[in-house]
């Protein structure tokens, strides 16, 4: 069945820099924003942009992720003729099996899946970012420019350019150079890791790249530079809006603090661009007489008797009397006893924090990630 555009969502990242948050789950499955997982943003964008043919490429620690995605029901991706397909290695062929060696290789290994839909265009996105984006606008831009490939870019502050892949373009956004983390940047247009390719063109490059033993089989390192070298028509597409890579514990925490702002460009309450996820049917939250809640996000099933400030509570969290939670993120099922003080803490799922515990990180410190194991060491 022919589809104009197939979406490949790369969700195989280990998320090493998220430390304890990714010891047992893949980065895209890390809880985010009080009720979501990181990948929900990309999947919801697919639904809202009417991209209904989606392959999700998983690899690392996929159990929770697979369970969360299922057949794609929360995102209306459980469809008759296309919808969501999980593409997980190892891919075994007669000569043996293999893992994904790089982002480009992940696409190469799934050519059969893509060819089944005989698409004109291939959209490649990743499941690691927090943003609302209409991929259909990107596709329209790609068609208008009659490009071979279009890369979505974001203007970043000049002092941060050394953290990103930077695209150097002419005035009409035609890309003539790609620089990975440049020390002396010529531009502040950073690649968001979101690409649209003409599938036939990309297919050739992937086939050629697969034969190169020295290649990293990576879009940024290999495929895009090769296309630029061959003078293909590569264009940048300026994305405007909130976009956050939550790749480190610090940025994960910052993104949560961003959500508490009243004027953030990304609104979780935007009824025209909902973010969809699972719902475990907890009852509404109960805010008790002794509670004080301000500058916070609180989800269903929470019972709050203490003080909350600049904090995010996922579902089914309990905060007992006399406890104060500041600038913290409490994952589902966390229990906080009496007279506890937490500041700049990320408490992972189902942790029990006993009475009178005090844990805080100072403003200039990285947030403290609590797990069942390190909690004992900290409190004893």
């Amino acid at each position, binding site marked *: 069945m022919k589809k104009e555009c197939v979406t490949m969502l790369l969700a195989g990242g280990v998320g090493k820099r998220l430390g304890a948050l990714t010891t047992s789950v893949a980065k895209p499955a890390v809880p985010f924003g009080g009720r979501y997982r990181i990948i929900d943003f990309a999947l919801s964008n697919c639904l809202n942009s009417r991209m209904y043919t989606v392959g999700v490429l998983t690899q690392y620690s996929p159990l929770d992720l697979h369970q969360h995605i299922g057949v794609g029901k929360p995102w209306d991706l459980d469809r008759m003729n296309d919808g969501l397909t999980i593409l997980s290695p190892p891919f075994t062929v007669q000569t043996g099996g293999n893992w994904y060696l790089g982002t480009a290789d992940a696409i190469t290994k799934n050519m059969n899946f893509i060819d089944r839909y005989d698409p004109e265009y291939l959209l490649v996105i990743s499941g690691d970012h927090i943003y609302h984006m209409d991929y259909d606008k990107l596709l329209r831009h790609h068609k208008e420019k009659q490009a071979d490939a279009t890369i979505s870019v974001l203007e970043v502050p000049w002092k941060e350019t050394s953290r990103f892949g930077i695209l150097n373009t002419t005035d009409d956004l035609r890309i003539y150079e790609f620089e990975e983390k440049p020390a002396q940047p010529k531009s502040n247009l950073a690649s968001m890791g979101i690409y649209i390719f003409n599938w036939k063109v990309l297919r050739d490059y992937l086939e050629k790249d697969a034969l190169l033993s020295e290649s990293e089989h990576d879009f940024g390192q290999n495929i895009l530079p090769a296309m630029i070298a061959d003078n293909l028509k590569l264009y940048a597409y300026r994305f405007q809006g909130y976009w956050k890579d939550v790749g480190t514990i610090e940025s994960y925490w910052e993104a949560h603090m961003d959500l508490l702002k009243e004027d953030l460009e990304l609104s979780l309450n935007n009824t025209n661009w909902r973010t969809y996820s699972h719902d475990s*049917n907890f*009852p509404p*939250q109960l805010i008790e007489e002794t509670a004080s809640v301000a500058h916070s996000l609180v989800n*269903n099933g929470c019972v709050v008797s203490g003080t909350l400030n600049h904090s995010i509570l996922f579902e089914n969290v309990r905060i007992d009397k006399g406890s104060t939670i500041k600038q913290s993120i409490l994952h589902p099922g966390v229990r906080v006893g009496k007279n506890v003080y937490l500041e700049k803490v990320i408490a992972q799922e189902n942790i029990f924090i006993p009475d009178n515990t005090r844990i805080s990180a100072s403003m200039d410190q990285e947030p403290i990630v609590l797990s069942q194991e390190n909690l004992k060491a900290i409190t004893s």
Partner: protein
Amino acid sequence: MDTMMGLINLEHEHDFLNELTYFRCGAAVPFAGRFRLIDFTLSNMAKSDIHEIAIFTRSKYRSLMDHLGSGSDWDLDRRHGGLFILPPDWNDPTDISKGDLRYFHNNRDYFLRGKSDYVLISGSQFISTTVYHELFQHHLTKGADVTLLTTTYDQLLPEHDACVKVKTDADGWVSSLANEPKNSHVFTGVYVIRKSLLLDLVDDCIANYKNHFFMDGIKANLNQLNVQSYHYDGYSAIINSIDSYYRQNLALLETDAYKDLFFKGEHVLTKIGNQAPTKYLEKSKVSKSLVATGCVIDGEVDNSILFRGVKVSEGAVIKNSIVMQRCNIESGAVLENVILDKDVTITRGQELKGAKEQPFVVAKRRKI
């Protein structure tokens, strides 16, 4: 294995919530911040391995159908079984049946096609979170014709006046069903009956021009039938008036009641709304309140229930009130002892006060 099919009979529950039931049936009235009354009995059935459930509904069922959809949020979109909403589409020219018997008569196929030998029947006014496995086992072990789910209330409230009260012998066999004002042993409206017996009683009632299956088929035949009772002692409430609706909503603000209803049994399933977590802003001051998702609160909320997507602006005060989906309370507005139906806007500086004994009810989509 013996199994049950479900029936939610709404024929006897019309318009009992005044303004709230102007445009919807009672079963579809929002309750406890994110649910509708019917969710409780429907979830209980779904969690009791009842996979086919029929709903008899006569009128104002549009919002009910919108809420239930295909039944997927209750896991009832099944190849085997499923959800059957049965409005009055009656085309049998020889039909002489009356009252709720018309539903049984005209939907006989639902019962005949179902593979279960037993039927669990319920209304939507009994609020509880339980599963019916033990009730069913009790029915089977006792070899009863009918088993009624009953409960006892320490304190009889006005809503219990309309209930059927039960007297039993030491073994739980029901000896009398009557509207005795002082008897605190209350029939919940939930009962199990053998399907073949149900259909026989239906025929019998119709032949005798009767109009109420439970009253004419079961209560009137109490002497001929073996009617057993099964006692439920978990948290429960009966909602059959604005007064009970208001009181039983606010009763859930007591921590014990909240935990008894929502955290002892199974989760109550409902239509998923996909709202963001509720956002508390700088000036928010919330206490003793039940708050659903999607709200944005910058005002004062005390002893109240906010449904999904309610906006409370800075300086607004809400006390002892129930505020339904997507209401917008502008700054400086004051609400006390008020029930706002969905999509109501209370403009800047408005004050609305009802009495504790008689809350002020505002119908859907009004702007005040």
